[in-house]
């Protein structure tokens, strides 16, 4: 077989694979929208108008090119940013076959670290302060995942239970810090405003010529996208990523190859926690510029991150697009309520439906695999034993 032919066959196969992989998530989104339309129509509203408004809210309109569009797209991107971080966090865990369902707790620890460090490092120049804060937030998130990771590695305690429990501890711990040591003197349930030099600047500051209006999208988005590529590279090209994937796919074979399942678990869950911590820091430094008490505010980005990871099938690059979709749905929902008079909760229903269909695909795939396996076993190949 000639090398070029082989290469072309492989390339073709990779395309097929990519299509097949992306096909079901895309189909899930379309199906979810379709059912969402039916629900909207059933409640006596016009689905076309509703989705039109949603699109306008998320991406702007063709007529009003420029100003309105930049604001809308900026809004979508700003809402997608924490979801990219959180989606990467959950996806990384999944690659090691770990379900970091408590990413939200690690995210809150990252937020509070960012808020505390932001106030403490007020005197330093931005270029030093911001990286330090981000590193601190990542460490805070990682530390919150560390104990569940150790428990998993040493005694096999399931991470779904332990990270979830730590998520609640994190919620009330940060709530206490916001009410006590870091309380704003004037308004309750929030920390004081951070000094402007530790903010993640909005993107219009970098591209004033192109973006002539202030937008909500901030530098965190660029960091998130860069991080997605970094995570992809780590998984694909480093020994750590190799270990993570090997343990995720087949821990027994990994162990046979000298990879420590315990150490890999600790690394994977802590990295997942660090990414979640960055999600919190990005929100605090880029959007809120302070931290609100999540017990009352409850944004739950960590949980939406699970949905993003599922839709992206744990592929770091796909996480970017899945997060933007969820960001767009969220950004467009208020316009939908305003213009088409459709409650913005319909967006939550659509998000749930997307996850439902993506989940159903796993079931379908499992069934297909099982059938293929049965067929293989019966093919006369007694290879299994």
């Amino acid at each position: 077989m000639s090398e070029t032919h082989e290469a072309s066959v492989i390339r073709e196969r990779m395309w097929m694979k990519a299509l097949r992989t992306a096909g079901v998530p895309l189909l899930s989104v379309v199906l979810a929208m379709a059912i969402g339309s039916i629900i909207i129509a059933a409640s006596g509203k016009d689905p076309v108008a509703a989705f039109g408004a949603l699109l306008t809210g998320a991406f702007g309109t063709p007529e009003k090119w420029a100003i309105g569009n930049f604001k809308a797209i900026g809004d979508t991107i700003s809402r997608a940013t924490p979801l990219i971080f959180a989606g990467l966090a959950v996806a990384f865990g999944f690659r090691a076959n770990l379900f970091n369902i408590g990413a939200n707790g690690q995210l809150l620890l990252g937020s509070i670290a960012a808020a505390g460090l932001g106030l403490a490092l007020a005197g330093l120049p931005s270029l030093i302060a911001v990286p330090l804060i981000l590193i601190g937030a990542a460490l805070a998130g990682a530390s919150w995942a560390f104990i569940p990771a150790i428990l998993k590695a040493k005694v096999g305690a399931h991470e779904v239970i332990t990270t979830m429990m730590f998520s609640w501890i994190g919620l009330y711990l940060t709530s206490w810090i916001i009410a006590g040591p870091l309380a704003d003197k004037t308004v309750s349930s929030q920390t004081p405003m951070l000094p402007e030099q530790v903010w993640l600047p909005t993107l219009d500051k970098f591209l004033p010529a192109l973006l002539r209006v202030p937008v909500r999208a901030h530098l965190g988005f660029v960091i998130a996208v860069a991080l997605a590529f970094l995570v992809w590279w780590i998984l694909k090209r480093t020994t750590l990523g190799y270990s993570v994937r090997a343990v995720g796919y087949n821990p027994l074979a990994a162990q046979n190859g000298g990879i420590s399942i315990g150490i890999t678990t600790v690394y994977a869950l802590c990295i997942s926690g660090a990414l979640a911590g960055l999600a919190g820091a990005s929100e605090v430094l880029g959007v809120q510029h302070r931290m609100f008490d999540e017990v009352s505010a409850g944004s739950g980005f960590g949980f939406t991150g699970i949905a993003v990871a599922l839709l992206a099938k744990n592929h770091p690059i796909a996480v970017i697009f899945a997060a933007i979709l969820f960001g767009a749905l969220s950004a467009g929902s208020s316009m939908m309520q305003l213009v088409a008079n459709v409650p913005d909760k319909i967006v939550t229903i659509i998000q749930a439906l997307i996850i439902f269909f993506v989940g159903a695909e796993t079931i379908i795939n499992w069934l297909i695999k099982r059938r293929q396996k049965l067929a293989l076993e019966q093919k006369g190949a007694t290879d299994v034993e």
Partner: protein
Amino acid sequence: MPVLELREITKVFPGVRANDRVSFALERGEIVALLGENGAGKSTLMNVVYGLLGPDGGEVLVDGKPVRIRTPRDAIDLGIGMVHQHFMLVEPLTVTENIILGHEPSRFGVIDFATARAKVSELSARYGLKVDPDARVADLSVGMQQRVEILKALYQGARILILDEPTAVLTPQEVRELFAVVRTLVAEGLSVVLITHKLDEVMGVADRVVVMRDGRVVGETTPGQTDQVGLARMMVGRDVVFRVEKAPAKPAEAVLEVRDLVVLDERKLDALKGVSLTVRAGEVVGIAGVDGNGQRELVEAIVGLRRPKSGSISLRDKDITHASPHATIEAGVSHVPEDRHRRGLVLEFDLAENLVLGDQAGPPYASGGVMHTKVIDETARTRVADYDVRTPSIRVLAGALSGGNQQKLVLARELGRNPDLLIAAQPTRGLDVGAIEFVHKRILAERDSGKAVLLVSMELEEIMSLSDRILVMYEGKVAVEFSAGEADAERIGFFMTGGAKHSGSAATAPKSSVAEAGAL
């Protein structure tokens, strides 16, 4: 008139013509062996007969009448029974409960156990299938479980019995007993199809042999008309070397030393009760034994997957008793695990990724935590070529390869590392004749290049043909040691089943059962 006749059966799987116009007839009171390599289409054909697969063409006749068999229930109703390679028994239930499952005799909705038990006992006595009807299946040996499967088919009224690779899991003694039962069955008027790829069985028990290759029937003969060499040629399509030619071993210094090793199993019981053995450079030490007598625990302890309770393991005078799997690999131990899917390969990884498993963390494949894809791919291409792994590319996932190619992949990785000690557990399990030949040659090549080889296998034939010394394990101990020349299947089998222990008197034990350590 044949009791079972197949005409032009065709079954197509995506990309494979598993059965291509296969015709086959079985007479009453006859034992027909369906012989062929793995993947030749034997099991597919019989699964069509048993209603597990629908044919894409052709017809099935029972007693001369065309029938349509859509489900196993249809087959059972027509008097066709099948014993699968993997038993389909409910382990916590008793023998009787398993046998009547699906055909429970009942009175007013309550199972009539008295009738059931009586019928089971009667069948058991009539066909010489001795088994305790009240024993729990989980407590029975594999051979006994197989009897339960056969009884179950008979209970359901089978006149035609299909046995799929029935001897794969049996000891030589159990094989003889099984064949005695099969002869009783045909004497009583039943007809038996024996699916197998073992030539000696065919010669020993079959009345007629139908040979399949690549989904077609390539020939038909009787044991009287041919011999094993002739059968192998028909089956593989070329001449096959049975006993790999090997030069006498030149054992040198001790490489692996195991002393008084005690290892626990999952239930915290002693699986190894003080095992000592030595493997020298340039020799193959074979470990024979029935599955579950401590072989797995021995291997896992040596490669660092299981922590020994006491005793010591050393490799070239370096203590590796408590070494991690990684440290063991570094020390020069390669391990071909008994289950390539569970332990040997990451099926979702491509070939190149699989070929560096175990060496991925250091030079030349990685430095500073970053993997050198180019080096990895180049090595992978070389290994794939050297070990004749049939694949269109190294980017193919390991799970997509056939069993033989997967095993070559594992060998390529483990031997490519150039180890001091090779531990090969069940290295040819589930492989066909051609692949087995390849694996055997490679193992002997390792020996001849001065490596120490520890071979663990359930296949006596394999142990005898490769080993320079043979240890038989029974209940966590080395029961006996033979040197290559003095062992035959009978004597090894005797010790595999605890013969020395249960016979009570040394007089009944075959001669030279005394350990002759290193007597070469």
